[in-house]
């Protein structure tokens, strides 16, 4: 497979330019709408990551690397796990059990909402960063 296209594939490039923002938006929708419909952090992370992967496939890895440097991915990867585990730590500090979101707000239901929001975000950030960085590493050597 040729991962470094040069002067060809203009149609693919135009279509990709149109598609990438839509894919990113859909990723965010799946992320934040997971409470109400199918989806959640994991699926959202994969969709979000695949937008960058499509960009990398069509425009070449270097351009994607400029938008999202591998260093940033390493930070995002750890940040997601930190956010998830940190939510657990906060619930413990606030007097509950690990990942018992009831204590996060006065109303247990609001606490659950906040807790779910932040752990799903953590999952999404980690998964998308891992997926993109897998792609970077598999695609960067010919």
């Amino acid at each position, binding site marked *: 497979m040729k*991962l*470094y296209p*040069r002067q060809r594939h203009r149609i693919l490039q135009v279509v990709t330019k149109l598609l990438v923002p839509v894919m990113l938006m859909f990723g965010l929708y799946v992320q934040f709408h997971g409470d109400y419909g199918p989806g*959640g952090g994991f*699926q959202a992370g994969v969709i979000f990551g695949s937008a960058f992967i499509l960009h990398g496939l069509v425009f*070449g890895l270097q351009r994607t690397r400029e938008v999202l440097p591998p260093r940033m991915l390493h930070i995002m990867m750890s940040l997601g796990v930190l956010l998830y585990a940190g939510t657990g730590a906060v619930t413990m500090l606030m007097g509950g059990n690990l990942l018992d979101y009831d204590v996060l707000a006065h109303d247990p239901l609001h606490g659950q909402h906040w807790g779910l929001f932040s752990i799903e975000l953590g999952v999404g950030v980690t998964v998308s960063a*891992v997926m993109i960085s*897998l792609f970077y*590493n*598999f695609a960067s050597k010919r």
Partner: protein
Amino acid sequence: METLVVAVLLTFLVIIAIGIIVLRDLLGAVILLGVYSLVAAGAFVVMDAVDVAFTEAAVGAGISTILFLGALSFTSHKQKPRGHDSVFALVFVVITGSVLIYGTLDMPHYGNAESAAQTHPDLAVRFIEQSGSEVGPPNIVTSVLGSYRGYDTLGETLVVFAAGIAVLSILGLKRRRPEDDVLEDAPGDTAAGASDDAKDHN
């Protein structure tokens, strides 16, 4: 009707799986793997497991196909012809397969309302009746994943993280060659790109 659709999809899965085994062209096999995941996702949708179908379609048909293609670019598209087929391997696979199928005989049938998971007061009954007032989200899957089984999901995220770290430590980090950083011109981006384009047309 639903049973018929599921039966057709599962038959497709078996046919595709055989195709993957038989194909010597690895590129074709990878594409078939993607098709396999897509058909599996269809089957999950028919069985009302929409979240699972979503994951299967995104990960199985999307990302993993691309990663396989990336891995293929390191090697050749043709599988090396094998000298002989091992009888031992066949016997081993048949025995393992039979044991696995025997194991499924004890499992409750699909959609069985009497199964332990459906009737246990702390499982499906609790999730369906209580999750609205205990956790909130209308999507019970999210409540179970994030709240009732939040600890499991934390472990899952750690597994993904560990996989990322493992791949980075094997393939990544130090081995950046200088030519990887050279920008290749895309058409229309720069004057140089445009002139290259013109050459291509001639």
